[in-house]
Structures are given as structure tokens and as C-alpha cells.
């Protein structure tokens, strides 16, 4: 998925406008694409999404910590589908703290599960005003159509 987007952008099969999204964004590394991919396949997708974001956005930042040491959104491993709601909130306090510390208004994620869970946790423990978008959603919004 990252490779495909990188291919489209670098070969100019799609063109992007960096000025459309004005909000300050923050990027979340999903466990599966990053840390776990690195452990299982020897390559973690850390660099690619950041490069893609650079093509789409003017202002974005990283969470602390990030990449292999990043915190999970709290919805992984099927936990999102369990009735352990309080526990998930406890778990996600780290993620919410990271998001707040970044002072971003928009969280960009390249994972359906993370997207759903971060949205739910922001709604549950605030600030609900922070938007959550897919990485490809950001790309789609920046698309320049002739």
C-alpha cells in the first residue's frame, strides 16, 4: 500500500497539492506496518508514510515516542472487538497523551483498526475536536485532477 502510493507519487502518476490541508497533523505508526513488520519481515514501514506525508502536507509532526517504540492505539489484537471498554480506555491514555502533546488538530493513520480506535477514544476521552484521517484519505484530498 505504501509502496503503491510511493510509486504513484514518485512516477507522477498522480499529482498532489500540498496547500489544501491547513491543519497541523500528527502521524501514528500502526504496530503491524511498523514494529511488527520490521520484526517479521525485516522491514518496517517507517520512512515511506513520512515521505508520502511530506508530499501531501506542509505541517505535520511525529508523536513521541514513534517508529518501533511507538504506542499502540489500544485497539489492536482484536481488543477493539472485546467488551473490555474501560481497559481499552486505560490503555489508550498513552496514545491520547501523545496526541495532545503533539498539539495537532489532525491524526493521520494508515490502518483501519487504528483509525476506528483512535476516533472512538478521542470521542470518549477527548479532545473530540481532533480529526482522524486515513493516510490515503489525505492523499485523495490532495489529488490534483486535470
Amino acid at each position, binding site marked *: 500500500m505504501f509502496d503503491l502510493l510511493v510509486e504513484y507519487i514518485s512516477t507522477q502518476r498522480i499529482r498532489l497539492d500540498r496547500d489544501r490541508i491547513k491543519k497541523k497533523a500528527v502521524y501514528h505508526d500502526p504496530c503491524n506496518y511498523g514494529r511488527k513488520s520490521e520484526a517479521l519481515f525485516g522491514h518496517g514501514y517507517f520512512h515511506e508514510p513520512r515521505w508520502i506525508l511530506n508530499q501531501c502536507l506542509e505541517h505535520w509532526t511525529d508523536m*513521541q*515516542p514513534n517508529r518501533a517504540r511507538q504506542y499502540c492505539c489500544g485497539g489492536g489484537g482484536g481488543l477493539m472487538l472485546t467488551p473490555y471498554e474501560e481497559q481499552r480506555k486505560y490503555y489508550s491514555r498513552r496514545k491520547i497523551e501523545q496526541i495532545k*502533546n503533539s498539539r495537532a488538530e489532525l491524526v493521520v493513520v494508515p490502518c483501519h483498526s487504528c483509525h476506528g480506535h483512535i476516533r472512538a477514544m478521542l470521542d470518549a476521552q477527548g479532545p473530540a475536536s481532533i480529526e482522524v484521517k486515513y493516510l490515503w484519505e489525505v492523499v485523495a484530498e490532495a489529488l490534483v485532477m486535470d
Partner: protein
Amino acid sequence: MKEAARALVMGGGVSGLKAAMDLARAGCSVFLAEKQAVPAGLLLGLDRQFPSNHCGLCRVLPPDPSGRTWQACMRRGFGHPGIEFFPGFEVQDIQGSPGNMSATLIRQTLMVDSDKCNACMQCVEVCPVHMPDLFSTGQIPVKAISRAAPHRPPHHLAISLEACTLCGRCRDACREGAIDLDAAREEKVLDNLDFAVLASGVEYCLPEVYNLYQSAAHADVITTLDFEALLSSAGTDIMRPSDGRPVRRAAWVQCAGSRSLKLEADHCSGICCMISLKQASLAREKDIQCSIFYMDMRTSGRDWQKYLDRAREKGVELIRCRPHSIEQVPEEQILRIPHAPSPGNQQDRDFDLVVLSVGRDPAWKPPEYAGREGVFTSPGSRRVLDIARSIIAASATAATALGEDRQESLPDQEAKDQDQVHSRVLVVGAGPAGLSAALTLAAGNIPVVLVEQKDHLGGHGLSNISPEQRKEVQDLAARAMEHKLVQVYPSAAVISCTGPAGGFKSRIRDSSGDEKEILHGAAVLATGGRAAPVARQEDRTADIFEYSRRIFAAGNSGEAPESVIFILCHNTRQEPANYCSRVCCSLALKSCLQTLSLRPEAEVTVFYRDIMVQGDDEELYTRARSEGVRFIPYSPDAPPSLEAKDGKIRVKGSDPYLSEESEYEAEQLVLAPGVVPAAGSEMARIFNVHSSAEGFLCEADAKYRPVESGRAGIFICGLARNPVPFKEAVLEGRAAAMSALGLLKQGLDSRLQTFVRVKPALCSLCGLCLEACPFKARYAHEETGAMAVDPLACRGCGACVAVCPNKASAWSEQLEENVHELN
């Protein structure tokens, strides 16, 4: 005997200095190469050392009444008439065979001519090469040309050739012509060397290289070496590297770069726990809140557990948890460490500064020539050792090198008992330490009287579980029995010792009650130790020594119990035996593995407080775990409780990871009560030396004169001095012998030079001087009762001169002028 041996010593740190001085005192011509501009190695950056919390490097210098040794701080420089010192040079290669070796030395550090330099610092200004400071691990950037050492005056500059590009800008900028870059390519070749001693130490782990705790990203995550630099330059407060704000909360993280299979670092550096405890203790004095994150607090020396207790009393907080990461709280300049101090409990703690406790670089290897014939490598150049063990190892390595070098020459039978100095040495105890001491002395042509209480030689070495080590002791015993210069008195004991160094008079009593008087110049006390007694409820209980002997006795055909429980630190590492015995953990791990190898389905459980393995013995612990030994930590406040029932042992203990109290049943219970000195207090009384509350004989200086007792001429080693494993007992024996040998050789040369003399006409025999002397150099003459000065023991401190009410104790004439000058 052939002429003086030519010896090369590599490394000018405390180990190299010690080896070089020992060899010089033994009559060798010594060449000492040190790659930095100044001696002292790592100690250049360590201002204060545990457990005294101050420096004492100068105490490693031999007492030299002739004044020929440069009796000054060795961090500033070093001079010795028997040693040719090559600062700034590193040995690149060694060729040839013992007796005819040649070494190539290349420049690593180029010194600026300090006679010409006027400290204008233009050279530093123009130097384009920035590099990490040699005296920290890079937090304080310096230039390729910079101060030779933090303690040197500003006109003592040096150029690190590892970093220098020889661009010439510094030379061009220097108006005094103090920089000669041509000397950068200078090489020295030393020929006709008889042997070489490698004592250059190990490289320390740089966290950036291994991306430990993302230290490169945080300016306030530093190493213990960096912290030493911060501490040295600190005033009232310790300042943070990032913003110069005073540090109020600091954390130490142990085992950075070690005890990890991921980093291929399955080792323990053995001293980092103590370094962190020291740093935190010192930081407490500046009212900093200090927390140490650790897994096992490895306080495995005689006095180290007490040091830990003192640190705790000072308010140092110990948190048993290895952190996963250090987080930067944005905009607040705070380092946050999430951690789980007990199972099921997670906390965040904020700090201004985090210190990574680093040890040996996992990738470090000794130089290729380390294993070559004629190159003797000090154990301190294979693993990290604390100062005392470095000094012992260096001395012992020098002794070994000297011994092997001399094997070819015939023993010098010339009588040494001339004048009042007797060259004979009395060695008490014939275990691994005593035997090693005796044979080292004999190899140096010193006659030895070896007194052993038992009817055979070898001591505990004979029951060692390792066949190789048993063989080593048997060989030592056989050699001692055969050696012409070693006179053995088995089944005998020393009952008294009087007189000064060089002229001791001791009485020996054998089993039949016969007594004999011997005259000797020095004594080595190696009376060993034994297992501390355990209260045995019944025969299914064994101490670790018995159990290991039993299970190793029949090799691979022995029998093992189906279940065994070990309880380590049983009634030890707490008052009244508040010290780690250092041998039990390794022995327990080996016994666990042997049990499993004899009976793979056996259930092996170990209750422990801290696993105290060091160096590569860490691998034993890793193997024991991976082979299924279950380790359960306990706290001394709640030790597991024991009960014997129906022929089985029941142990009640709680597994903190499961938070459940469980009852464990086993066929065999093994307790590790530690070791106690065998005859410490008695030896202390007979030889008039100090001993600890536990009965261990004490040194003059625990760091720098580890095998010398407070009384000149009396040396101590092995288990009698402190708990040591077999190999270290051997090293201590050799080191003690080396010191005795040096003292006697030097004593013969310079015995007429004294600092203090007694004017008998003025002396009222009040004896105040006897009490005042910290070196036990003052004594009453056996026959006349007159107050006398032992020239070998006297350091010229003047305590007796000051205390004497009659001015009968006085400085010797040649010293008087100097003393006034000093005043």
C-alpha cells in the same frame, strides 16, 4: 642470573602503571606505552571512587624513601627511574618470540611543546575537527587539538591523531612554533624484549552505536562516564548538558549495553552497579533525587553490600525494573520513564537527567597479539574490573610473566640473609592463594617457609568441582613440595610474630607441640575460608558446597534428585554477615545445570535475592533459565519458609510474577549460606593487622593497596581477605607475592634511608609514638625495649614527630630542610 629482563607494558592506566612498577621493582627494565598524552587511563575522568568516594591513585606508588619515584598525582604525569614511559604511543604490533621480541609503537597522541606554548589557544580556535571528549563519552565536544587532560594546565595541549587530519592549521596559527606535526608519523621500535604485558583495559559501550534508549536524540541521556565529567566540574549543583539548568531529579539505568541477547551482550561488567551507587550517593549530597533502575544489584565485594545500605540510607531509591524507553515530554524538557516496579503496577517517573550505566562494549575484542607467546594479558584487559581487582590482576600478570621468563635461568642460590633484612618470606596457608604466593616468590629466588594447618597442601582447591582447577591445585601443591626454595611445614601453625618488616621473628608450632623460630623479611597470610554453618533440620538439606561436590563427583554418571530447591543468600548479605560471598551464585547455577544434565526432567527451583554472576558467567544464568530452571526472587524481609514433612522438603514462598503464595515440594533442599574467613581474627591478633567485624583481614587501602595489610611487610590474599572465586584467589596469591618481592628487593637497596629517627637520650619510652603511627612503623625493640622505626614501613607522615612530648622522634637530617620548605 642473566641481566635485567626487558619488559614492555602496554597501557598506562592503573593496571599498566601497577604492572610496570612491579616489574621495575623486581629489577626489569620496563617500557610503558600509553596512547594518551598522560597516564591514568580511565581514572583521568574518575575523580571519586567507591567505596571511599575520593581518589587515591597516588597510593599505588611504592613507598620510595629515596624519592626517586615521582611522588605526585599520577593523573598529571609519571616518572620512575626504572621505567621508560612513552606517552602518546600505542603498540601496533609485536613480532618475534619471548626473549627476542620486537614491538612497533605508533603515535596516537601528539603533544604540543609545553615549554614553548603560551596557552593562547589559537590552535584550538582554528582546528576544524570536532570530536567527542576522551574524558566523557561524547557529551562534551572538543577539538582534535585540546587540553591533554582536564587536570593539566592550559599550556599542556595534545592532538588526538585518531581525529586529526594533519591539515596544518594549528601549526600555522601557533606563533611560538610549539607544534611539530612531523612527529605525528613518528614510530618507535623496541627490540630485544623478553616479554610484554598487555594491560590496556577494555573499551566501553557507546550507547549511540547500539541506539540504546535513543540516547543520541536526548542531550540529557548520558553515560556514567559522562556523569563523572559533570560531577567533576560541578559546583553546588550538577548542570544538565542540554540547557545548563541544575539537575533536581536523576535516574540511573543499569545494564545499558549488556545482559541482552539482542545486543549479543550476554555478559555483566561487574562494576556498573557500584559506579551508579557511588554516583547517586554523591548526587544525594547535592540534594538531587536519585533513582536507580536495576535488575540485580550486583554488590559482590566484601564491603559492597554495606555500601549499598549506606547509599539507601542517604536516600538513593532502588527500583527493580529495566525500563523499555526514555520518553521526552515535549516542551517541558523532562525525561519520562514509564516502568513497572512490581508486577501489575505501572508508574511514570520524570527526571531532568538520565544516566545510562555502561560497561564493556559488546563488540570489543582484545588486540590480536593478546594471545601470542610472550604476551601476558592481564584479566583486566579481557573484562571490566574494579580498581582493586585491576591492580591485583596486573600484579599477578606481571608475576606470571616474570616467573615464566625466569624459568630458564637457574635459581640464584646466593645467600640473601645479609645485614638486618631477611629475604625469606613466611606464607601462612597452602590453599590456592598461599600456594600461588609461595611459588611466585620461589620463582623470584626468594626462599619461602610455607606453613599449613592441615597435613596436606591444596586447601579447598582440592574439592573444587572443576577437574581442571583441581588439577591446577594438585600441580601447585606438588611443585611447592619439590621446590628447593620452598620449605613446607604441614600440620603446623604460626603462634607469634614480632619485629619489623625485614626482620620478623615468628614461632611455628607443629602438631606434636614442638616450636621453631624463623626469621623472615615478609609474610603472606592466606589462611582461607570455609562455608558458613547452616542449621540443618534433617539430611535432605545440604549447603551449596556439599551439594555441588556430590552432584559433580561422579561426572556424567552421577545421580540427581528429581526435584531440588535452592535458597540463595541464606542468612547472608544481611547483618551480621552483611556481604556477598561471590562464589555461591555461580556454583548454584553450575549445579542446576548439572542436575538437569543428569536428570533432564528434574524440577529445579531457585529462590534468590540478586543473581551475582559477573563477566561471562552471565551465560551460566542465561543457560540455566533457558533450560528450565525456575527463578523466584525474594526479599530478605520475607524469605521463603522451610518445613520438612514425610521425607520431603516443603518451601513456602511467593512468586511475585503470579502474585500467589505457593508451596513447593522437593526431594532436596540446597542452602547457600556463604563463606566465612577460616582464621581471620586469630591471624589479625598474631600478626597485629586489622580485620573486619566478620574476621576478614583488611588492607592498607581497599582500592590501591589491596594485598597489603596496614603493617609493612605483612601481605594478605585470598579468602582470608575477602570472598573470592578460585581464579581470583590464585591472582591474589601472586599479587601478594609480587608486593612482598618488591618490598624486599627495594628494602635491600634503600634500607638506610629513613624519614624519622629516634633520639634515645630524649625518649621517655612513653609509647605514644607506637599508637600514633598509622603505618605500624613504630615498635619497641624486642630486647632493649627502645623505641624504634621500621624503615620499610615508615612513610614519613610525621604523626610520631608531632605526638612526641620530648622531641625524641625527629625528622632525619636530610629531610628536615624539605619539610620546612613544604611548610
